[in-house]
Every structure is written in C-alpha cells, then in structure tokens.
C-alpha cells in the first residue's frame, strides 16, 4: 500500500488538458495530406500509388476530375512522395471529424491538353477543417453535457471487423494520459446503457447482424460515430464478399472520424462533435 502511494505521488499528474489546451498525438505525427489543387500539374502518379484509392482521377474527353477523400486516406504519405511538383504535402492535421461523409472529399476540375497536362479550372468541392476549433468545442462541452446528458455520455464501442489498430487508440482514452472520464464520458459494457455507438472496422459480413442488433438495443436518441478509414469507407479493405465497406452502409452515421488509426485526440474531437448532434436529436425527440 505504501509503495503504491509513494509511486502515485512520485508520478504526479500526467493527464493532458486537451481539448482545453491543444495537444499533439506525438512529435512528427503524419496527419492528412493536403493537395494544392491550383498547383497540381499531374495527379496521376499520386492516384496510382495511393493504396486505398483515396485519390481518384477521372478523365472525360478534355477534362479531368481529381478527388481526394479523407474518408479513405490512411495517411501513408505516398502521394506526397509521388508528387514531383510538391503540390501534395503531408500535414500534421489530425482533428478531421465531420458530420457528413461528403465533407471529407475535396475535388477539382482540370482541362486536359493534348499532351496530357492538366490545367486547373475550378474547385468543385473543398473539404475544410471543421469551422469550430477544438478549444471552442471544449468550451461548450461542459455546458452541453450538463444540459443534455446530466453530465455524462455513455459510449458502447463496437468492433465491426477492425484490425484492432483503432482499438489500441480507443483504449488509450481510458489511460491516465487522456482520462476520458474527466469529461463525463464513459465506456460502458452494454449498448442498452449507451448514448453512442463508436464503431470501428469496415463492417464485415459476419458482424453485420451483431452490429445491427447492438444499434437496435441502444435507446434513442442515439449517436453513431464511424471510426477510422475502415469505419468511414471500408478503408484498405473496401467492399467485398466479406466487407460492407463502411459503417454508413448499415447504420445512419452522425460523425465520421478519419485516420488509420485516428490518435486519441482525434477520437475525442470527433466524440465531442457528435455530442452537439445529440442536442439536435433530443430537440426533435421531444
């Protein structure tokens, strides 16, 4: 007993103040790639090396459409290496959660000349970082939790075929470093006790029925958060005889958290975004 106390005192407080204070998942973190669409001269090499098809190039007669989908991206950085003109760079961005799947996609239109070079015409859609910064979300958080959930959010985590990478990071939320309970958020054992399903994996054929059952067992109003490239889109596993290709193929998804895997801060950022959504749902429910 004495040893335990001594060690605790010697260790001190290790918990991060995130989201009140910004924090990085680690030094040199490789976050999302950013394309400077105006400068991109040839997007084919990047599309060619992308292991998950997150960068797609579609040529039609004299025009070319280039799309980058953060929902598929595994943040490997290959596209930046394959982009000779430096139009793609990897950034440290990790707070990428959005409420609509389409918000994860940026796309641009180009004119193709006879030599196959592309000339920028216009952006067709631009994925922005969330309008709300994380500290703004953090400020509102306490208030929301108090008002809506009587100070607590209960999460049921469901692995619907993940590789266990996302679970490694979700587990870290329970560690003293991130200590998610300081925010009134708790992981629970049953969907019946939960307000939110935090779902990882591409939804395998064999997890389709269990996931659906867990969803139906969660009392309304309920939230579904899709975690990781697999949860957002099927990721590197895509769609096949064994995989549905993302959580939204089966359930209505409230928030998408990209990443492979998303670090704990990115998970928190997404969970907090989703809580705003619960307020809206509750309004409708009454």
């Amino acid at each position, binding site marked *: 007993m004495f040893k335990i106390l001594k060690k605790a005192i010697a260790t001190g407080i290790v918990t991060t103040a995130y989201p009140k204070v910004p924090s990085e*998942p*680690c030094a040199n973190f490789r976050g999302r790639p950013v394309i400077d669409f105006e400068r991109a001269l040839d997007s084919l090499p990047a599309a060619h090396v992308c292991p998950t098809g997150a960068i797609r190039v579609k040529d039609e007669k004299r025009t070319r459409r280039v799309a980058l989908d953060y929902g598929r991206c595994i943040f490997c950085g290959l596209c930046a290496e394959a982009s000779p003109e430096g139009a793609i760079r990897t950034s440290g961005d990790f707070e990428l959660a959005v409420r609509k799947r389409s918000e994860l996609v940026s796309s641009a239109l180009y004119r193709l000349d006879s030599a196959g070079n592309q000339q920028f015409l216009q952006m067709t859609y631009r994925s922005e970082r969330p309008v709300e910064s994380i500290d703004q979300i953090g400020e509102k958080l306490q208030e929301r939790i108090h008002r809506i959930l009587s100070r607590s959010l209960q999460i049921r985590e*469901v692995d619907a075929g993940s*590789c266990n990478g996302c679970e490694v*990071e979700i587990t870290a939320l329970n560690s003293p470093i991130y200590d998610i309970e300081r925010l009134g958020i708790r992981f629970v054992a049953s969907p019946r006790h939960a307000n939110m399903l935090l779902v990882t994996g591409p939804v395998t054929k*064999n997890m389709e029925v269990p996931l659906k059952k867990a969803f139906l067992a969660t009392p309304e109003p309920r939230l579904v958060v899709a975690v990781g490239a697999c949860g957002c889109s099927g990721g*590197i596993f895509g769609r*096949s005889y064994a995989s549905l290709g993302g959580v939204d193929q089966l359930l209505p998804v409230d928030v998408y958290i990209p990443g492979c895997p998303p670090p704990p801060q990115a998970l928190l950022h997404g969970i907090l975004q989703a809580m705003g959504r619960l307020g809206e749902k509750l309004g409708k429910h009454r």
Partner: protein
Amino acid sequence: MSQLVDGLQPVLEGLGQAFGGKIKLLGTPRTREVYLQTEDRYMNSISRHLYQLRDVRLTNVFALDGREREGVFYIQYVFALDRAGGFLLIRTPIPPEQPEFTSLTPLIPAVNWQEREIHDWFGLSPVGHPNPRRVAIHDDWPEGIYPLRKDFDLSTALPAFHGPRHVFRPVEGEGVFQVPVGPIHAGIIEPGHFRFSVAGEPILYLQIRLFYTHKATEKLFEQKSVDQGVFLSESISGDSSFSHCTAFCQALENTVQVEVPRRARLIRTLLLELERIYNHIADVGAIATDVGFGVANAHAMRLKESVVRLNGQLTGNRLLRGMSVPGGSRRDLNAQQLRALESLLDFVEKEFDDLSDLILSSASTLDRLENTGILPPMTALDLGVVGVAGRASGRDIDVRRDYPYAAYDEIAPRVVVYSQGDVFHRMKVRMDEVKDSIRIAREAAARLKDGSVRVSLPELPVGGCGLGWVEGWRGEILHWIEIGEGGTISRCRIKDPSLNNWPALPEAVQGNIIPDFPVINKSFNLSYSGTDR
C-alpha cells in the same frame, strides 16, 4: 540452388533414404528454405518420419489454386526445423476432380483449424479429420462458396444469410448450463464468440467461434500491387502492424534474394522491439486490471502511451505504420530521433521496474495469477503453441534466435522459457522480454552506422515464391507469397501466431471459474483480426 544451413542437409538425406523416389526435391532457393513435392498418400508417413526427429513441427498448412497453370490444387505444408534453423516446404498436388486430402490432424492436432480452413476457403476436404466442420466460414453462409479459389470474384455480393446456425456441442449433466459471450464483448476488444458450459462456477468446456472479423485479406493481396500490399499487411493485426509488414517485406526480399542494408536491418530490429515493448507493457497492465489491481494498469497505460508516442516520433505513425518497405526502410532515423529513443528507453526501463515491483509485491494479485489457467507443456506441444504462451509452457521457440533475420544475427535475444504454464508465467515471460527488448533496441541503435536504408527490388519473377518470418510480440508470424503475372501477388498466406494458439485457450480454462476467464484470456491476448484475416 543455395548452400543450406547445416542442419537441413541430414534431414534431407534422411528423407531421401526413407522415401526415395516418393519425394522430389523442387529446389533450395535460399539457405533456410527447401521445397519438396510428394503425393498426398505419402504425407502421413512423411510427417511421422519428420516428427520422430527432434524439434520438428508442422507450423503451417494451406492450399493454392494452381488449376489455371498446372491443372491442380496444391496443399502446401511448412515444417519448421527449429534446431536446424530451416523450413521444409512440402507440397502435394490435389486433382480438382477429387477435391480431398489426407488429414494429418489425428497425428498432429496442431493443424486442426488450418485443415478445416482449407476446406472453407478452397473446398478441399480433409479426409479422416475428427471434426470436419466449418471453422472459418460461418454455418449460415451459402453452400459452395470457396472464396480463395481463383474463379471466385472478390467483389461477389453474397445474399443475406438464412442458413443454419452453429450448433454447439452439448455438454450434459445435472445442473450443467451454457453461458454465451460475444461476439461483442463488454470491453474495448475484438469480436468473437465464447460458449461456456459450466456447472456452478467451474468451466467444464469452452467452445470458441471466431472469424467474425474476416475481411478477405488473403484474397485482397491477389488484387493489389506489391506496394499496396505493404499497407494491407499493416492492417492484418493493428497491434502487430510492424511485425506483419516486416514479415511481408522479408518474404518478398527472400523471393528475389535481396540483401537489405545493415542500417535498415538494425532499424527494423529496434522497431520490432518497440512494438514488443508497448504491447507487453499493455498486457502486463491489463492482466493486473483483470484481477482488480487498477493502479498498476494506470501506470502501464501511461508507459505504453510514452512508447507509442515515441513510435510516432520515429516513424510518423503511432503504430509504426508506413515505415517498413520491401528492400529496407522507407525513412531513416536522425540523431534527434535516436536521442529521443535513448532517453525514452531509460525512462521506460526504470518505470517498468517500478511497475513490476508493484505487481510482484502484491500478494493478493499473485494469488489470483499463480496456478490459474494452466496450459500443461504436453498440451502446448501437441497443439503447436508458439510465442509467449508457448514459452510459458516449456516451448523453447523463438524465430529471432532460431532463424535469425533483420539484425538478430548480431544481437541475439535471450529467450526465457518457463514450464509452469499459468497466467503468472505468461505475465513473467512478458516482464522478462520487456527488459531484454530494451537491451536489444539500445544495442541496435548503438550499432547504427551511416549508410543507405533501402535498396530497390529487381523485377519479381513469375512463379517465384518465398517465406518471411518474424517473431512478433505474440509469437511467430509467417508470410508465404507467390508471384503472379506482371509482378502481382498470386497468393499470400498469412499465419498469425494466434492461429496456432487459439485452440489452446479452451484447454487452459478448463476447471477454472468463469470470473477468472478474462484474466486467462488476457494472458494469452490473441489476435482476432490476425486469425480471421
């Protein structure tokens, strides 16, 4: 033809004397791999012959669809000769008109699941198998679907399943009842179904249903380019990203016989050990928490987070992804990163000592761990258990030492073996290994000399094949790949150590009480995704 490692030659000669013309040498492309071919009807006696030698184990059995080129399926057997330091890869042709092969399970129980897998993926039946039910494909899947056959399209949309549900073996007697658990578990862990038959609290019998996370990984390798395959290999089992990826890269490097630069081999070694360190620390903490010692787990999670952050600082990804590449390392490590490594290792060494001391001096914790969930050495031997669980039950196997790769030829691991086989000793193996891994990582960093970290691979030869092996933190990971037309992968067989070890869990829990199941399960900590693929 390569010069073989010393111990393999006599085994080959022995096989030649005993079986003469019945077994044919296909080639010895590398020092540690011998390829042989025989007929299915001789496999039983050949296996018997090999098992009479010391330290031979059949570690991997899988099938290949060679119908397009050669008109037959093949069953590929991988025998590991641990003291010789080499692998015997024996294959037998199976004609499509008679889709069956002799089951070796009655002789070698370790291949029970793997033989049933062959039936599920390829439709080849193991004749004489004591329990030839489906294992990988669930009972409610339609009949006649064999996903790894070449004529099965990956994108096939299967109908909703309305087939029969799995029938668990009945366990009968007064007061015996069943407790179903899963596939969704109470904690943040992977899905799988456990069916306990209990009488009061003691567990009489445990049946496990897995493959809930099956996502066509082996089939997907056949559709991806080699470069894309590297990233797929990182997603086989997320907590072993670097080990699986390195096994995949080494299989490719072996196929084309490329020597990876020494600096890259050292970097791989130190990252492999970091993966072992962070996972072992997490497991030690989780074992403590499963017997109610939450404070120890809090310290363990704090330590694990510090290692995971270092992973990120060294590779850009907290799970060490995007670093290993066929031919070496995608990125080099700079002086600043190496300094961070050094100080982190010092920190973890000291803190882990404190953590171990907290656990080992807590009598009430030890009381729960000792003599709980015993896997007897004989059972571990029969079931071919590998890795941490194997070494806690007397199995002196570690492919880092037995078949050195990366830089383990110059920095040999100290292999710890216990024979008690209980939860405590599975934890103790981890504690000992964390210390040794810190030493290896330090030494690997100290030996780094300036130089390149990557060589490019020559063109991949059609029909070329190779084996890659890594002692992941759970145990021995094997990847076997075969090259198809245009530099694609025509077959990638992935063997996670969990595939060997899952059948041992029911043996270890028998007679224990249900409340001890979580800690017993945790002490094995097997991968679902790595098994289900």
